């Protein structure tokens, strides 16, 4: 056997395979997309089928400002990743913290909207089909924003104690892919809930 084990052919000169972190994140994004698709389908299927009020037309207000916050956080995290890849740790930290602020204000916007819906309009998850599908879909997205913010905060803590350097830019990029995905999902949710669903 030893003769066999040692006589493998020569390795090809260039042998480069994709980065496993990125591939896994793409896999996760595909899986998450399927989950969101099912929730979006349920939302669209039940539009206008609630047996009692309130209806989306009556109570929903389009959250333009907070949407701009979330979408621009995609730009800032991109700039953060680019800064780190060029070994500018200070720029990275600034853009990274800005991303957290923007993401956090989006979550605040969601919380405010939910507070208004619950206390002013009496719409809860068990009120009618609109409530069930609205809170599930928007809540699922908000959950993903929260998960992303937790990871961003962990990254920020590491950066503040000086542990994030150019060597980590690959990992930071993988995390930024997740954040971009969360933003893209919001574009879909926004279109479905605030544009088509009214």
């Amino acid at each position: 056997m030893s003769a066999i084990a040692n006589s493998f052919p020569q390795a090809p000169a260039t042998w480069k395979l994709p980065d496993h972190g990125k591939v896994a994140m793409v896999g996760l994004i595909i899986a998450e997309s399927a989950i969101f698709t099912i929730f979006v389908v349920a939302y669209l299927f039940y539009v206008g089928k609630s047996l009692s009020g309130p209806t989306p037309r009556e109570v929903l207000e389009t959250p333009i400002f907070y949407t701009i916050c979330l979408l621009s956080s995609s730009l800032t995290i991109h700039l953060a990743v680019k800064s780190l890849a060029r070994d500018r740790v200070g720029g990275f930290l600034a853009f990274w913290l800005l991303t957290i602020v923007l993401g956090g204000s989006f979550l605040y916007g969601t919380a405010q909207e939910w507070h208004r819906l619950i206390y002013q309009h009496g719409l809860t998850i068990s009120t009618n089909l609109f409530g069930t599908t609205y809170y599930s879909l928007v809540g699922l997205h908000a959950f993903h924003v929260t998960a992303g913010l937790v990871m961003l905060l962990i990254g920020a803590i590491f950066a503040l104690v000086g542990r994030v350097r150019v060597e980590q830019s690959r990992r930071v990029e993988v995390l930024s892919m997740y954040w971009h995905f969360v933003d893209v999902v919001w574009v879909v949710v926004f279109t479905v809930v605030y544009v088509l669903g009214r």
Partner: protein
Amino acid sequence: MSSNAITIPGAQIGEKPWVDTLHGWLTTVDHKRLGILYIVYALFFLVIGGVEAVIIRIQLMHAHNDFVSPQVFNRMFTMHGTTMIFFVAMPILFGFANYLVPLMIGARDMAFPRLNAFSFWLSALGGFLLYFSFLGANGLYGAGNAPDVGWWAYAPLTARAFSPGNSSDYWTLAVLVSGFGSIGTAINIIATILCLRCPGMKLSRMPLLAWLNLVMAGMALITITPLSAAQIMLLVDRYLGGHFFDAQAGGSAVLWMHFFWIFGHPEVYILIIPCFAFMSEIIPVFSRKPIFGYPVMVAATVCIAFVSMSVWAHHMFTVGMNSYANSFFTITTMAVGVPTGIKIFNWLGTMWGGKIQFKVPMLFCIGFLFQFLIAGLTGIMLACAPFDWQLGLSYFVVAHFHYVIVGGILFALFAAFYYWYPKMTGRMLSERLGRWHFWLFLIGFHLTFDLMHLPGLLGMPRRIYTYEPGRGWDTLNLLVTIGTFIQAIAILLFVANLVTSYFKGDKASNDPWDAWTLEWSTSSPPPAYNFASIPVVASRRPLWDLKHPEDPDSRYE
């Protein structure tokens, strides 16, 4: 051998205390150990699910039987279905994928070893939750324990009003948790195959087992997740007062059916594609020929994966859909038969003109080919919407899908066990017991599932608790039950073979079948690091090249 092994400083040869061994297994992140954990865990549930099947069959043995109560009967078929799909078939196939994929592509482990362990323990928690329901699900209402809503758990059976207590919650959580485990493993398999192949192993040189598991994992990402989403909705309904599947508030029970079968039908292909992978590795070795039509096999698999995503509603012909939906799902379902047929012809083409060795793994492969073909043919029959209106929800359907799952998937798994057991344990399984196992199981299988079609044609509905005598079902049901016992005896022989061969089997060499893929180039069982030096390949059959340097495959590919 010496040059193929690494001495690890400080590693002692000798008996370790059993606590250390146990600790090693519980905390392991080694893909081989996790693979074996998956497989042992699945075998444990196979025995439990098998006992439930035997209870179902004893109850149906003759008319007006009351071996168990109707309530227990409902629990038995629910638990049998859920267990066999989620806690036997999925983990056992993931176990083989875990064990074999890194070895076959010349890698030292999976891409994410800790995620791998996490996924396994999630699946294990799922199985534990499902069976803990027998003890813990009594709830406040004394409303019965284990889940009893069928493995599809159609709404509104799962609504609070019809399923008080916690039994449906245990079902939901068990399936949800094991689903997260499956997604983790699927991501891991994809990352491993795309990113850790040894130098020279281009996608076009990858063993078919790796290719097919890549396709399977890709399917898992987009078919298991809809089920997870539906389970989350069900939990919202049950715990937060939501109305997703609550018809009284305008919700739709049919929506649950769609969501379930969007998962449910591709799931069958998630299970069968790794079995195609076993066939594609084992049949060539025992036919002494390379696989016939390698690129076509890959293309057919990808094609099956795509088409199978759009066939789900053939499970819902009897629910009532418009004629366009009926036509669409009839056509797509029949279309799956085309790439599947291509595969069967390719395996036959591999055997054609080969020097076939009828060892036990090959016997199970040949059984698979025949039975999977018949299962496919009854599938085409049921794909016709009008035919399905007559026979949907009858024992004909039960016979059809057991033909796929037992006659196809289980036979392929037995072949895989006899083929790779020497690699995993370093011992050969007994060929004599294996032949007894094969023939007894074959006879029991055909007695049970060939005959089971007939009561279905005669109108016996599935999930029926008992029946009136004199409808022509009595003798058939008795024979079906006798077949079940023959299968149970065969399974016991198999377990006995696994256990006795582990201690007393013939020692296996590194390459007992004279095979061609990389896992046979390392020792049996492989060391923790798999390969002392990472192999380099130049063709689809690297070991053939090594054994025949005068005529390597790389010259022709």
